[in-house]
């Protein structure tokens, strides 16, 4: 008798999954997040490393040799207000093409009104152990609050004498004083109306130029290296980071 009941349930489950003549029952479909980078609209990828020169808002001429950053806690808001959380996090590394796309997650079809995510990790997530991030040496020194980097952007710029100098724009938890730390991640929350009907790809865009621009006009002659323990530099990064990300195309 139990078997018959189970069959009936299984039958119902299979039936409801295979039924496509009722649009009110959402299906789960894969969604992929794609991370793209640009400098005021010009696409930036690893082929630009060490060769393409950029001029930041204050006029520093620079090249990029490394760009890695972490995005976590992506959530999609349905039209009824329900939040769909995407599992995991993504360490974007421009030198690794596979890292520009996050492993697909399954989300329900239907109408959505928003996309949110965290640049870096929030305080709770930043206290966990992530073996894949450890092996990537993504850790932020314990003496600076520990956890993980949020971004590593490195390269070379021309100093006021025209000589190449290194820069290492590394962002993470801010150290106020010995043993006193300030959270430095950034929450992004975009109102965005879209309907998911099928396999979808959602683009998250980073405009690198914004890291140097708004509201703090960044001068690499002032802040180039040794920025991790520099509270002022870390807070300027946080301020400028607020306008760095946007939602790009949503295709399906």
């Amino acid at each position, binding site marked *: 008798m139990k078997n018959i009941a189970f*069959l009936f349930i299984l*039958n119902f489950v299979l039936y409801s999954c295979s039924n496509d003549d009722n649009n009110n029952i959402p299906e789960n479909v894969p969604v992929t997040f794609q991370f793209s980078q640009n400098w005021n609209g010009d696409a930036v990828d690893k082929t630009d490393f060490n060769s393409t020169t950029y001029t930041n808002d204050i006029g520093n001429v620079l090249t990029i040799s490394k760009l890695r950053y972490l995005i976590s806690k992506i959530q999609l808001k349905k039209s009824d207000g329900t939040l769909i959380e995407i599992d995991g996090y993504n360490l974007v590394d421009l030198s690794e093409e596979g890292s520009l796309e996050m492993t697909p997650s399954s989300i329900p079809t239907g109408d959505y009104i928003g996309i949110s995510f965290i640049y870096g990790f929030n305080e709770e997530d930043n206290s966990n152990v992530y073996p894949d991030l450890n092996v990537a040496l993504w850790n932020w020194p314990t003496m600076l609050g520990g956890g993980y980097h949020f971004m590593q952007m490195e390269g070379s710029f021309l100093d006021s004498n025209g000589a190449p100098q290194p820069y290492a724009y590394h962002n993470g938890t801010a150290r106020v004083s010995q043993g006193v730390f300030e959270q430095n991640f950034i929450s992004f929350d975009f109102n965005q109306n879209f309907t998911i009907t099928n396999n979808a790809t959602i683009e998250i865009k980073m405009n690198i130029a914004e890291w140097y621009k708004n509201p703090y006009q960044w001068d690499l002659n002032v802040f180039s*290296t040794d920025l991790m323990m520099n509270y002022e530099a870390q807070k300027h990064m946080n301020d400028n980071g607020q306008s760095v990300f946007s939602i790009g195309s949503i295709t399906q």
Partner: protein
Amino acid sequence: MKKPSKIMNRILMAIFSISFMVSCSSNDPEPMEPAEEYIPTPKPLNVPSILAQLLPPPYIPADNPQTVEGVALGRKLFYDPILSGDGTQACASCHKPANSFTDDERFSIGIDGLEGNRNSMPLYNMAWNTNEKFFWDGRARSIELQAIAPVENPIEMHNTWPNAIASLQSDAAYPELFRKAFGTTIITKELATKAIAQFERTLISANSPFDRYLMGENSLTAQEINGFAIFMDESRGDCFHCHGNENSPLWTDNIFHNNGLDAIITDRGLGNVTGDPNDDGKFKSPSLRNLAFTAPYMHDGRFETLDEVINHYSEGLVYSPTIDPLMKAISRGGVHLTEPDKADLKAFLLSLSDPSFINNPDFQDPN
């Protein structure tokens, strides 16, 4: 076309469900395999708890699982000069356990008395080199492929693989050892290097004083602890961006960098492999484990002591176009550590050396 009714749909689904369940619950025995397949004894790597807690699982290729018989064969091959052109050199000639599986030469000498231009690399924790790029320039994409090269390199073991295989095949012991490891007495270079790779993956080092300190099993000196703080300080050592930290105890990023050794690049390193001038002068960051046993240092063995290495990063850096941005204060040669800071940093670095690794009886010559 008329759609099937919902009732019809359900009946069909019920039939499908029943057949699905029947197939799942079948207890019929599988048909017999036509020939019994030989399976050597699985021997998963014994991962020390500090590595298990902090790092991803070791990478073992699906087509070369670790086995008791495979590791034993690989160990015998590693120490056997039979693989070299004149029967005088084994892998272990330049990768000696007492030196953490490197040697103490700047450039190792091959069977014909010729020397190369790169320092022999120490061997340990290779299963966590997750990007699978081996050699100083990353040109071998697996341990198995790496092991092919020295046998036929004219300045190293200067043999040919067909000749090496013929020697193994005509040996009294090897055909049976290959049968035990791989189920066949027909020896190939692929099987020989698979066995060597299995042995090399067992070379795990994770029992230095600093490892035991992290596990709460012993204490460090004040000098070693201060040295670690210098190592982790971006404005002083700034070693951690390439060489790891207490949560990443491989002590390397396994990535390639130009660390400011030369103004004019004569050995292109990674650039020779990728063909990209932006990679010129880049070499793999070596792990800092077991430095007490692995002198001389750098890809070309140019520094005989750790003091010379520390002095290089402190005040000896020179600019070249591909220099890593993490090499700072180039115009002054580096950040100029104080002498006490240098001494403390050195003390910390030596706390990463693991005598139990070089003395492990499982890793010594079995022949």
